[in-house]
């Protein structure tokens, strides 16, 4: 029983929230909804913790759906990278849901959609098949459309339509990419692709890689595909915004890490990605500086921060990719924390415009502290997790002698700090005696702030995990052998 449970573990983070969602459609009392939602979240989190523990030595846990051996069937696979992403998704899903319940913004649609979204996200992290990744994306995206449009106003619905349209176009690019890759290599299994890509016609593979770059890049919000993000993320309320802003774009980033290293393996730093990373960082942070409301500033920072992650990928070294993954995980925690702080402010002050806020630190000391910790971490100021993420990337960049991108990354970190200061100095400082946010709205964000502090104190623990994850990408032999049973 234990053995079969362990063997089944990689599929639980997908199945558990889906079953929770099915039950949530049926049982509609508010109490049952909340219990089921939280229980589903906790069970998923437990499964994902187990996955991380089981893969931390570099183990690869494949499941061949239907019992059809890879590469003929669909492979679901948990390796360190996938397990870490599932862990963070389950964590943010749970924390965001707790906030949503605390803010009283949950109804039966939100609960069901939330579990479907979590299922889709985890699915994307755990599948080992290119087309199945497309399917996972669609599960995730339709859930996000649903949650985004639920209870919207006219103007918000229009923004949401833009989000859907751009994502559909990106999905079309995804399908073109799949068609090109399948035509060139005759396979869809990612491990099999590792073996086949070097043998396949280069032009077709390259065209496919470019299509996938556009598709994943749009979801990840990198330059020049990120335009939808500030519009779309202005819509959902705090808890959902944290889940969206923290997690959703990172599925695209994950896919770039996972797939791009396979279909577009490079021996050295990739100039295309380096340019995109630099531009993403710079344009994102400049966008943030131009904004006057907390949520929009934070939205633009999502873009800017994705640039750092892509910088790690573009450097293509073990250190760079490990640093990039470190950055992804750190960022999800911190950014969700900040969005939850923003959410708590919106829920209690009924606005997030800087010119209408002031003096929050006086009445909301803990909230201010949480904001400061997360904001400084985001800007890469020690001693929080963001500093080590930045340190790893700077070091990787200097080792690769890519001084340009290093220069951009440090300048952007100063600009990031400037825009965070703008929020702090106007909303948290200054005159005013704003209402106090109830503790239940502060606790979820505070939990995330504690994580960034803990990671900052013991960066080694997380780094050794991301380093293992990076190894499967830079030297995929073990990953391939485990899946193709060689």
């Amino acid at each position, binding site marked *: 029983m234990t053995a079969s449970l362990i063997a089944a573990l990689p*599929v639980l983070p997908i199945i558990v929230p889906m079953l929770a969602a099915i039950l949530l459609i049926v049982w509609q009392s508010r109490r049952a909804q909340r219990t089921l939602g939280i229980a589903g979240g906790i069970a998923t989190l437990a499964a994902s913790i187990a996955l991380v523990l089981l893969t931390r030595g570099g183990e690869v846990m494949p499941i061949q759906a239907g019992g059809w051996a890879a590469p003929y069937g669909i492979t679901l696979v948990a390796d360190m990278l996938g397990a870490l992403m599932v862990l963070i998704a389950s964590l943010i899903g749970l924390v965001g849901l707790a906030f949503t319940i605390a803010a009283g913004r949950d109804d039966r649609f939100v609960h069901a959609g939330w579990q479907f979204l979590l299922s889709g996200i985890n699915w994307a992290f755990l599948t080992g098949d290119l087309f199945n990744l497309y399917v996972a994306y669609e599960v995730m995206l339709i859930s996000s459309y649903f949650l985004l449009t639920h209870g919207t106003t006219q103007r918000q619905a229009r923004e949401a339509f833009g989000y859907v349209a751009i994502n559909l176009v990106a999905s079309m690019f995804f399908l073109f990419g799949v068609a090109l890759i399948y035509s060139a290599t005759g396979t869809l299994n990612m491990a099999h692709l590792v073996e086949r890509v070097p043998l396949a016609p280069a032009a077709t593979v390259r065209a496919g890689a470019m299509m996938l770059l556009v598709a994943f890049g749009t979801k990840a919000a990198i330059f020049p*595909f990120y335009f939808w993000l500030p519009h779309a993320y202005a819509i959902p309320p705090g808890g959902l915004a944290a889940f969206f802003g923290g997690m959703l774009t990172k599925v695209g980033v994950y896919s770039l890490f996972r797939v791009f290293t396979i279909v577009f393996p490079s021996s050295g730093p990739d100039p295309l990605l380096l340019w995109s990373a630099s531009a993403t960082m710079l344009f994102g942070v400049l966008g943030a500086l131009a904004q006057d409301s907390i949520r929009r500033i934070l939205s633009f920072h999502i873009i800017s921060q994705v640039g750092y992650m892509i910088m790690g990928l573009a450097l293509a070294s073990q250190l760079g990719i490990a640093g990039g993954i470190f950055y992804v995980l750190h960022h999800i925690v911190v950014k969700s924390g900040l969005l939850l702080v923003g959410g708590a402010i919106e829920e209690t002050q009924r606005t997030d415009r800087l010119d209408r806020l002031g003096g929050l630190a006086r009445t909301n000391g803990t909230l201010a502290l949480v904001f400061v910790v997360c904001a400084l971490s985001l800007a890469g100021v020690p001693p929080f997790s963001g500093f080590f993420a930045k340190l790893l990337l700077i070091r990787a960049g200097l080792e690769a002698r890519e001084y340009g991108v290093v220069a951009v990354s440090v300048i952007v970190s100063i600009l990031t700090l400037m825009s965070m200061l703008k929020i702090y100095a106007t909303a948290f400082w200054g005159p005013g005696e704003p209402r106090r946010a109830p503790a239940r709205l502060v606790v979820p964000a505070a939990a995330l702030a504690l994580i960034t502090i803990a990671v900052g104190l013991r960066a080694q623990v997380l780094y050794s995990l991301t380093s293992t994850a990076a190894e499967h990408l830079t030297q995929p032999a073990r990953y391939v052998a485990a899946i193709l049973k060689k």
Partner: protein
Amino acid sequence: MPFLLGALPLIAILAAPLAGPIANRLRAHPGWISAAVTAGLLAALAALAAPTWSGQTPRLSLDWFPDVGLRYALALDGLALLFAGLILAVGVLVFVYSVAYMHAGQELGRFYAHMLIFMGAMLGVVLADDLVVLYVFWELTSLASFFLIGYRNEDPDARAGATTALVVTVAGGVALLVGLVMLAQAGGTWQISALLTRAAAIKADPAYPVILALVLTGAFTKSAQVPFQFWLPSAMVAPTPVSTYLHAATMVWAGVYLLARLLPVLGGTALWVAAVTPAGLATLLVGGSLALVATDLKGLLAYSTVGALGLATALLGWGTPAAVGAAMVFVLNHAAFKGALFLVAGAVEHETGTRVIDRLGGLRRGMPLTFGVAALAAFSMAGLPPFGGFLSKEAAVEAFLHGPWAATGAVILSGALSLAYGARYMWIFLGGPPQPRRAKARADAPPPPESVHEPPALLYAPAGVLAVVALAFGLAPGAVERLAGLAAAAITGAPQRVALWHGPTLVAVVALTTAVGGGWLLFRLHPLAAQLETRLRWMSAGRLYDRAYAATLGGAKVLTGLYLTGRLRDYLIYITGTAVALVAFGFARTGIAASLLPGEMELGPTITVLVAMTAAVAAVRMRLLLGAVLALGAAGYSVSLIYLLLSAPDIAITQAVIETVSLVLFLVAISALGKSDLAHPPARPATDWLAATAAGGAGAVMAAMVAAPSALQRISGEFFTHAAQAGGKNLVNLIIVDFRGWDTMGEISVLAIAALGIVSLAPWRRAGSGAERRKRGEAREGGPFTTLILRTIARAVSPVIVAYALLLLATGHYGPGGGFVAGLMISAAVVLRSEAFGAALLARRWDILMAAGLALAAGSSAIPLVAGKPLLQHTLLVVAGHRLPSSLFFDLGVMLLVTGAVLAAMRSLVEAAGGE
């Protein structure tokens, strides 16, 4: 013992959040708690430092981030001891002073928390023996400084000053970080003491100039060197204990400390001297000049601190043993006299309510003790014998004596300046009472000198201690010489004897006379200060920073507004344009792998393709929305026909069924939305045509590439082999429900979520009450005759449809068909019946059927897991002699889900139509 060393910085930081609560519990001022903590740390430092006095270095090194080579490494050598002792000793005095200065009722707990965090961080900076540990504490001091400057944040100046200070120091800090990482790479270690042994290699490294530039940027921003000097005066909005502690005695000296610390690693080169010394001298003169014309008491002291930092920087840049010794002596002296003067300024403000120099005067009568303290300290600042300040100025002149004359001249000139601004400072005590220039100024004029009283003892006693120390430094320089010698030895690596007083040499006399004479002359000119101040303000460079800050924000706004138009059309063009460019770029590099020669053309498919093209073009050209929708339908059916002709009957059927349902949905939508579609602009911008054509071209080329398959064996070959094992003949259906059943699981999830989404989108659920809706539903039933016909048809047809659907489901494994199509047909039958017999049938909770279908599909996938078999593992069940693959249950789930989803969505739409 080593662990105590490691704990020194952390104790202060950990004590920070506790100071306030403990003080509340004890009903004591948190300043006392902080002072007690600091005194305890000072005692601990004294105990730890015993080996240091005899030339050894206590160390601690713990694993921290081994994969990157970071260690929590601290060392207490002479240099660290000098600064750590200074930090803690001044700390005790400032905390005692603050008890009288900081009044309860303000957010005192937070204030002291930040002060203690700062103190711990500052200790960490000077004790660190690892570059990253140093950097972490370095940044922490900047942060604490930010919160302390912004303590009175209702004041916009406080907010601006805090922000400026943080942005400048963190910007410098980031440069420093990159410099430190490069330094560690060049030296092969993060450990500072180990770097010393590799100094030669580092200086020979091609990256050395860059490392130096970056490290100096960090040090100069922190120590307010030209051109970064502007943040320090604007930080003077902070409460006086903060100005004294952070911005006079300790934090601003961190940059000087860093120069001293890295002097043996990076210093001694011509580049070092050329970069550091002139910057220091320039700062010395700029600071002195601005102090002379300052109008604010603390501003005067701030600029004089800028000058002092410049002097220390210049000396360290020069780097000779004598210069290093002089710098160390100066650090100690400066902390004593400048600390005292700041504390006095705070006391004066506390008593008179103002810091404006012109509005103060004659205070010696009201506060004689304070006056005495100030006089002692000011004499030292002015560099007059026998005070400590004289000795350090003297040592500085000596150090530069054999250097360029400009350096010596600048130091002597700065002596004159410091005497002059020292005199200006003292004039608030001497001089007569201020004369309000205008009548209206009288309202906010300070109280007349007669009503000014001596402040509480706590406000002048700590200053008195510092002033006496400054005097003692001059009278008995032994202790200073010893400590400065230890520090200098730690820097230069060889034992240093710092001897301060060589007797009245000619140089000393000349320097002193020049300084005193020049100083007096300058002081007599000070009535011109107000004019000069505006004239000299450019030197502060503050406006430059403000402009750069505003330009960054403004530029960001303009740039972002330029491309972030909020129009979907623009974004789509950016994205697709990039995609086209990427494809074109790829072709330019690797060529096109497709052969574009026309192969054999079959008549049927050719015609169908042409029809599809025509329909697509028609969809664009149609003016009427209805026409466009019908054109889309035509295109869809043609595509379906193409599938059929190209040996894909399963897709063809599904496509046709879906096309029909979509067409119905579109027609419903037109009836609702058609009115809003008046504005179909006949003329579209050329970019639209261009972008669409480019996208189409790229699409066609990629499709052609796809059509040129590679020689690699496809994985689908295996499906033929395993078809029997899976129990079927229709490979496409086998793939969907079995080989790649997991895709289908996702597909039906999408359907379920979409249906749920459609239901959730229904604002119409709120539009009317249930009873009203039911009435409308009845009203829609139409006349009795049509109902009869409809009912007859429905009664006859719907069972047939359901039966056929079930047949499709059952035979899906062997021929075209399957659960999806079956589900669509059943739902069509239900819709038909509900049209005929009223909406009651449709009003059921179809979402539960949908959930059941999803549960069946997911369950039949997951159940094998329980038995320890893979997900979706299917077996062949033998039921009544027939072989039934268990995947049938999966397909049944698909059918139920599709039925439920379509009906749930339909129900919402029908209700919506009813609600209209």
